[in-house]
């Protein structure tokens, strides 16, 4: 075995391991020949369970079949905050890799003692540690005498990329068989003994007050266990699910509500965003050493609407009280964060609350998963110790869950006599992009704002720039313009509830920057690929653009009704590089025919998993661009069904080709959010190429095309 000197970077523990240093909290060997891996991140359809199994099996030298992944729970999992921001592989993966590397060394040392040979003479194969002359032991044989209840130290060095056998391979996802054979795995499909069913009554009017609620109708429904009312929060508990539905229906019929809060005019969103009281922040400033001479300034405004997470499954949770202790089952992205907010609402110490993760459908950010957990907790108070399962309706999911924030973005470029960019100003008006639970002194859960002793609604904020920012995510150009000023105005009012949706502000900012660059290249009569390459110094950025241009045969000959566009970004400016060429056709309705994508995520632990994430992100982004916009009148969200909030269908989905640029020696970064911004921009640029019409207000629907055409002529 080769011994490696620790590299300077290995002396620092990965962030998740530094926060949760006890090795046994991550990895345990059971006597039956299995190894339990217990990450703080959760499966949300991104395949993290499989990628982490690969990493652990590789580093420990065990068969991947021996790895058992433990679902996150506040009862003992490492606290890794929230599963978001494409950080699961980056944070959990590095922690698991580092912990396993050290554990491997600890076991080798123990085996060396027991077998009486030096560590260098030992080898590990599928958990069996053997040495010369057929001497052998194993992780499991040694497990009872080796304690892992110790803190990780920064000394251990993980294997070199060339020594790994699983990482870098497209191992089949471990959760897929359960899902195609419909073994109950989703929280929605699990039933606890003696479980009751709950439903919550909510007005379709935003922030309306419950002024009356005659209960006779609901009381007459068979199976009713309880009607719960606490201020504006109301719900029913029933022996059966359809009993709960029927009782809710009766309650809805009799309930009286005050009028709610006035919502903005959905057709004048940009004006509304810019007119609200806001908190301005200068995100970045760059001053030119030699300022070029400005001859003219071009200014453009781009907007994106509110977007719904629109999970295929309505949010669901279960809760059970035992005395003053509560156990919650949830598909929340952050079990500890949810626990912190539940403690605030319930005024209980966190020790009294156990929050356990179970899989839900894809959430794409902060949807109603956390809200429904509090609903279940509140209804379970009336269940005399029996567990209560609560599931939201489709309508509630589409109107009461947080939305991705609408954005207005203005960019100005100062151009010199040769139309080269000498100055750049980028301004954003948007609600904050994060109001996740567990991060503030006030809870961020919906029902908390409805209780008699209510908490104020959390006005969304933006994560710090060090974490990639929020509304400002990807607003600082990766291009080497000589100077720039980037600023963000966070709204201090929030009539429409917003929180994290995949990419936060990056989709809007990349759409704006990459559209504007296309406009500027067009002004100069320069090819947009050349224009981008000329302004990029980062060779990995250049590589994805060159690769995608080559693969898409950039630029194919012009055909009537067809167009090609390019978009590029490095997610958060620190994550995955992604370049996209879109091919569109159509006149009144745009059809995206093909998306050709090149992506660089550093080390790809599971290449097919990365490609799957990129394909999925590209298709979801196409849906956002062509179809999606949360609709509302002045009182209520009106896009509360799939008819009113259409998403891309099978017949509308483009062909997607993904080229993965492998860099096994680079730190792995996530892939889940890399494609959205570049795809959005590439489609908009392709629409311009096809029709000569620049659509600056998403989504690119027939109406928006007509409006843009009128503006052009």
């Amino acid at each position, binding site marked *: 075995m080769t011994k490696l000197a620790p590299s300077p970077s290995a002396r620092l523990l990965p962030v998740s391991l530094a926060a949760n240093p006890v090795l046994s909290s991550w990895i345990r060997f059971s006597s039956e020949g299995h190894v339990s891996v217990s990450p703080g991140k959760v499966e949300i359809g991104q395949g993290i369970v499989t990628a982490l199994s690969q990493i652990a099996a590789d580093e420990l030298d065990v068969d991947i079949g021996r790895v058992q992944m433990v679902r996150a729970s506040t009862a003992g999992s490492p606290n890794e905050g929230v599963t978001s921001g494409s950080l699961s592989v980056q944070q959990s993966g590095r922690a698991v890799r580092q912990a396993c590397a050290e554990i491997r060394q600890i076991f080798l040392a123990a085996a060396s003692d027991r077998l009486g040979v030096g560590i260098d003479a030992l080898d590990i194969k599928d958990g069996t540690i053997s040495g010369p002359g057929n001497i052998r032991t194993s992780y499991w044989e040694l497990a009872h005498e080796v304690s892992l209840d110790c803190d990780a130290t920064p000394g251990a060095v993980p294997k070199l990329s060339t020594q790994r056998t699983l990482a870098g391979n497209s191992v089949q996802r471990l959760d897929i068989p359960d899902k195609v054979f419909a073994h109950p795995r*989703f929280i929605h499909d699990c039933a606890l003994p003696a479980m009751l069913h709950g439903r919550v009554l909510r007005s379709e009017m935003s922030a309306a007050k419950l002024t009356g609620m005659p209960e006779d109708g609901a009381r007459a429904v068979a199976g009713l266990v309880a009607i719960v009312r606490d201020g504006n929060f109301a719900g029913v508990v029933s022996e059966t699910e359809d009993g709960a539905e029927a009782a809710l229906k009766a309650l809805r019929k009799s309930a009286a509500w005050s009028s709610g809060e006035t919502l903005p005019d959905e057709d004048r969103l940009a004006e509304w965003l810019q007119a609200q009281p806001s908190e301005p922040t200068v995100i970045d400033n760059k001053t030119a050493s030699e300022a070029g001479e400005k001859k003219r300034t071009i200014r453009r405004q781009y907007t994106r609407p509110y977007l719904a997470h629109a999970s295929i499954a309505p949010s669901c949770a279960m809760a059970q009280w035992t005395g003053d202790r509560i156990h919650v089952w949830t598909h929340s992205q952050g079990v500890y964060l949810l626990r912190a907010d539940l403690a605030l609402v319930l005024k209980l110490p966190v020790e009294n609350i156990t929050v356990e993760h179970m899989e839900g459908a894809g959430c794409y950010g902060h949807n109603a998963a956390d809200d429904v957990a509090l609903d279940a907790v509140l209804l379970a108070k009336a269940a005399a110790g029996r567990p209560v399962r609560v599931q939201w309706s489709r309508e509630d999911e589409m109107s009461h869950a947080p939305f991705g924030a609408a954005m207005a973005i203005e960019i100005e470029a100062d151009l010199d006599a040769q139309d080269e960019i000498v100055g750049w100003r980028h301004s954003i008006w948007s609600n904050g992009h994060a109001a996740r639970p567990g991060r503030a002194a006030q809870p961020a859960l919906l029902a908390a704002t409805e209780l008699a002793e209510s908490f104020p609604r959390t006005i969304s904020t933006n994560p710090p720039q060090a974490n990639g920012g929020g509304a400002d995510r990807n607003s600082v150009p990766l291009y080497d313009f000589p100077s720039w000023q980037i600023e963000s105005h966070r709204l201090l009012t929030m009539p429409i509830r917003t929180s994290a949706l995949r990419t936060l502000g990056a989709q809007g900012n990349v759409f704006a920057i990459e559209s504007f660059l296309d406009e500027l290249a067009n002004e100069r009569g320069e090819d947009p690929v050349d224009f981008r390459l000329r302004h990029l110094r980062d060779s990995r950025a250049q590589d994805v653009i060159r690769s995608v241009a080559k693969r898409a045969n950039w630029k194919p000959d012009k055909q009537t009704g067809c167009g090609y566009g390019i978009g590029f970004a490095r997610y958060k400016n620190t994550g995955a590089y992604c370049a996209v060429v879109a091919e569109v056709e159509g006149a009144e309705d745009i059809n995206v025919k093909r998306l050709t994508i090149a992506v660089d995520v550093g080390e790809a632990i599971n290449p097919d998993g990365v490609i799957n994430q990129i394909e999925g992100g590209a298709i*979801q982004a196409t849906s956002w661009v062509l179809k999606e916009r949360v609709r509302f009148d002045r009182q209520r969200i009106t896009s509360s069904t799939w008819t009113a909030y259409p998403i891309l269908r099978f017949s509308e989905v483009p062909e997607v080709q993904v080229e993965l640029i492998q860099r096994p020696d680079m730190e792995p970064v996530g892939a889940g959010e890399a494609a959205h911004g570049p795809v959005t921009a590439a489609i908009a640029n392709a629409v311009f190429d096809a029709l000569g019409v620049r659509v600056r207000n998403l989504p690119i629907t027939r109406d928006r095309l007509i409006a843009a055409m009128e503006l052009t002529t």
Partner: protein
Amino acid sequence: MPRIRFRLNGVETDVDADPDRSLLDILRGPLRMTGPHFGCGANECGACNVIVGDRAVAACDTPLWSVADKDITTIEGLGTEHEPHPLQRAFIAEQALQCGYCVPGILMSAAALLMRNPKPTGEDVRASLDRNLCRCGSHNRMVRAVLRAAAEIEAR
């Protein structure tokens, strides 16, 4: 209440329930068959699709009375890990999902298609899955998986 009889995944079944209740309620409730998923309750997403006779229908929008004496197949009746349906094998081979919540309904729509049309084109597959929603963007993989399953059945 009248007893309503049907064959569920080949098994004679009878239920004593309000005939106006949805088939999905009955399957997920008293019959504890959780493969068909609730998504919208309005026949708009396909997550609860099951096969009645030879057609894929949304169980949430199918009243119990309408399935009297019919053959119903749910994902539970499609195949098992030991005897997988070619579609299930193909979905694993193509890694054709991300979260998988929509998959039971999509498999049933695809199975109904293959019963009617054993040699579909890609366009046929897209058309037959057009009422099924997938939010993760796994569509192209799913189409490839259905074509793969069709080819496997054909080669038998």
